[in-house]
């Protein structure tokens, strides 16, 4: 009958969703099977749990508390560079963690800029390793995200409200209570929950700035159980703990947060009549910009010097990273496009669920599971790169679907009828209509996925092989060997590569798009 006729088949999308579900749930089952119930949690495991929760709560609260005044300032001020700054707030999402950490070390580290400045006044240097550093790095990554999300909340307040408030002579604190507080009360819990969930799965930050019995996250503890002790049972047990944590946090975040997040239309300034103190807003904006830009400029500056001291192995690692990112992006598109098409023609529980499973899964848990599954049949280290590409693609999938699904729905809605009347269905509709119409979104999703994969320092660390390393892992190794200059050079190279692949793919998607 007419209603069941659709221009694309739902079968490939279902198959892709099954692959994703099998990967995430299968590795989980492997881990659960391996976890020894009698083993119990050690004291160190409880410490890891406590540290994980504490740092995530602190990071989330600090990010949100700082984001509110910055977002408020951005929402009501118009200045040169405002658009650039708002666009820049999106950059940390694709910024490789290791690059940011090198930058933060340059600025806040023991021999960093601020410590040197303090030394001028005879003050002791800052201690960055441990809780401070982990929270600092998390705030660096999540303050921009929180600012964007809260800014969106401000933009969505209808301008009539502000007009009415101005008409009533409502200003300052009473305006805040009347309009802004209710908006914040609606938005902030979701933002805080999202950041909390992100910080729970933090691995690379904890690996580089944490460590030691007092600053180990669960994710890092899995890695340590795995690499230092090769205690698969304990790694599995910790994975189970991590899974409960992330699933609960992801569920809460999804419940509390609303649709959107990559939000369009952040350029609009709200017209307000209450003024506020321009100088206070300016200070917040400048502080936020400096906090974001200083570490990045530090990486660029020290990286330029380091470029010439890099050992050849760095270039090899860069090539490997490009290949892994390309493979990961290809896998992502093979999974995400059929899934998006399926969701577009018919809402399908399994497909949508598989699409968000990746938010709850932790890459280290999937990695542990894959290791357990692969080991009886093959040498896991020999499969390090394919596994990394696969896990990276799975992790990027929820974001990719969020970008692709609305475009797919729109295409089916706008062109489905005409295509059906021309008997264009299945593969023909997919390749001739759906893909070309979604080019811009495909480019954006591919760019994100490639950049995320390029900068990922997660599962590769589990499977690492002394011969083969991706660029982020190689930089980490250089840091471990105290070759900070070469590490900085590598970080600059990684930064340029990540931003370039993102730019090329995103641009490629929008090139000559006709509408």
């Amino acid at each position: 009958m007419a209603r069941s006729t659709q221009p694309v088949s739902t079968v490939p999308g279902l198959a892709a969703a099954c692959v994703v579900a099998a990967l995430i749930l299968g590795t989980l089952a492997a881990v659960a099977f391996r976890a020894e119930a009698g083993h119990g949690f050690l004291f160190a495991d409880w410490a890891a749990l406590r540290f994980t929760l504490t740092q995530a709560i602190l990071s989330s609260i600090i990010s949100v508390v700082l984001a509110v005044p910055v977002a408020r300032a951005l929402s009501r001020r118009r200045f040169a560079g405002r658009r650039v700054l708002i666009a820049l707030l999106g950059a940390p999402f694709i910024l490789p963690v290791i690059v940011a950490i090198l930058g933060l070390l340059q600025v806040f580290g023991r021999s960093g800029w601020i410590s040197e400045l303090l030394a001028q006044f005879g003050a002791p240097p800052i201690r960055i390793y441990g809780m401070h550093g982990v929270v600092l790095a998390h705030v660096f990554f999540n303050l921009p995200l929180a600012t964007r999300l809260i800014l969106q909340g401000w933009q969505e307040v209808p301008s009539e409200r502000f007009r009415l408030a101005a008409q009533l002579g409502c200003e300052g604190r009473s305006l805040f209570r009347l309009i802004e507080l209710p908006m914040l009360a609606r938005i902030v819990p979701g933002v805080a929950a999202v950041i909390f969930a992100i910080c729970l799965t933090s691995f690379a930050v904890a690996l580089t700035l944490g460590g030691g019995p007092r600053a180990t996250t669960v994710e890092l503890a899995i890695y340590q159980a795995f690499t230092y002790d090769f205690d698969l049972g304990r790694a599995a047990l910790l994975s189970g703990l991590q899974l409960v944590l992330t699933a609960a946090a992801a569920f809460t975040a999804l419940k509390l947060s609303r649709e959107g997040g990559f939000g369009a239309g952040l350029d609009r300034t709200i017209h307000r009549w209450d003024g506020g103190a321009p100088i206070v807003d300016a200070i917040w904006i400048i502080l936020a910009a400096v906090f974001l830009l200083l570490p990045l400029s530090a990486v660029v500056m020290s990286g330029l010097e380091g470029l010439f001291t890099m050992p050849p192995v760095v270039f090899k690692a860069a090539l490997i990273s490009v290949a892994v990112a390309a493979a990961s992006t290809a896998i992502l598109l093979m999974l995400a496009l059929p899934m998006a098409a399926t969701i577009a023609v018919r809402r399908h529980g399994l497909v949508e669920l598989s699409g968000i499973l990746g938010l709850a899964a932790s890459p280290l848990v999937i990695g542990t599971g894959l290791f357990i599954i692969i080991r009886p049949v093959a040498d896991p280290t020999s499969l390090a790169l394919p596994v990394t590409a696969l896990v990276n693609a799975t992790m990027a999938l929820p974001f990719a679907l969020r970008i692709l699904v609305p475009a797919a729905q729109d295409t089916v809605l706008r062109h489905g009828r005409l295509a059906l009347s021309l008997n264009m269905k299945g593969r023909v509709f997919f390749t001739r209509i759906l893909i070309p119409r979604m080019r811009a979104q495909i480019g954006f999703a591919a760019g994100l996925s490639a950049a995320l994969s390029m900068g990922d320092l997660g599962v590769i660390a589990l499977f690492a092989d002394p011969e083969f390393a991706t660029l982020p892992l190689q930089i980490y190794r250089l840091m471990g060997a105290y070759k900070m200059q070469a590490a900085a050079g590598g970080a600059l190279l990684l930064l340029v590569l990540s931003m370039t692949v993102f730019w090329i793919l995103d641009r490629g998607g929008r090139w000559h798009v006709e509408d």
Partner: protein
Amino acid sequence: MLKIRSCMITNGAFKLHADLDIEAASSVAVIGPSGAGKSTLLEAIAGFRDITDGRVSWNGHDLTNLAPGKRPIAMLFQDGNLFPHLTAEQNAALGLRPSGKLSRAEHLQVKAALERVGLAGMEARKPAHLSGGQQNRVALARVLLQHRDLLLLDEPFAALGPALKAEMLDLVAELVAETGTTLLMVSHDPQDARRITRKALLVADGTAHPLADTTQLLNNPPPALSAYLGTNQTH
């Protein structure tokens, strides 16, 4: 002959009953008040709406459960009749092959069809670089290439100015006459109906009424139609 036998067409809470015949190679205007279900009727015939009861057949072949693309029907919608990322030639070629892969002979056919609708030399343009009238011409070229027995027009020319619309309707009339196609055309404007159809089909009060003579129907409209046309003051 298109036979619509005691059909019940449902669109949400809206129900439309139809029981009528349309002769092959005739041109029929579908008229009636806004929201009466003119588009719904066409969409049901084309296979985009569920027919909950009854049957639709063409020359004795049952169409009721056929997919839209398998019916002997070409349809032009109010908008979105071209794919914006394909050239005029590629859009027209879809009428021959949905895959767009054409043989040499088929290429020539596409070229000829575009020439027939007055678009020689514009094959490589994309819809954004064509005027509204030219876009409709591309869609008509595709209809020509589709070689379907029935053409359903759901006001594809509504956005055009009066002169251009008349021009397009004349082109449709010519093409339909050349190919012996049966035409069903929704119209808001009595002038359009008079211009190219002899028969008309009134959709009003939840019913698609059997055909009547276009001129007679418009000259002596039943109450539901006259209220819509605004002619009741004169009676």
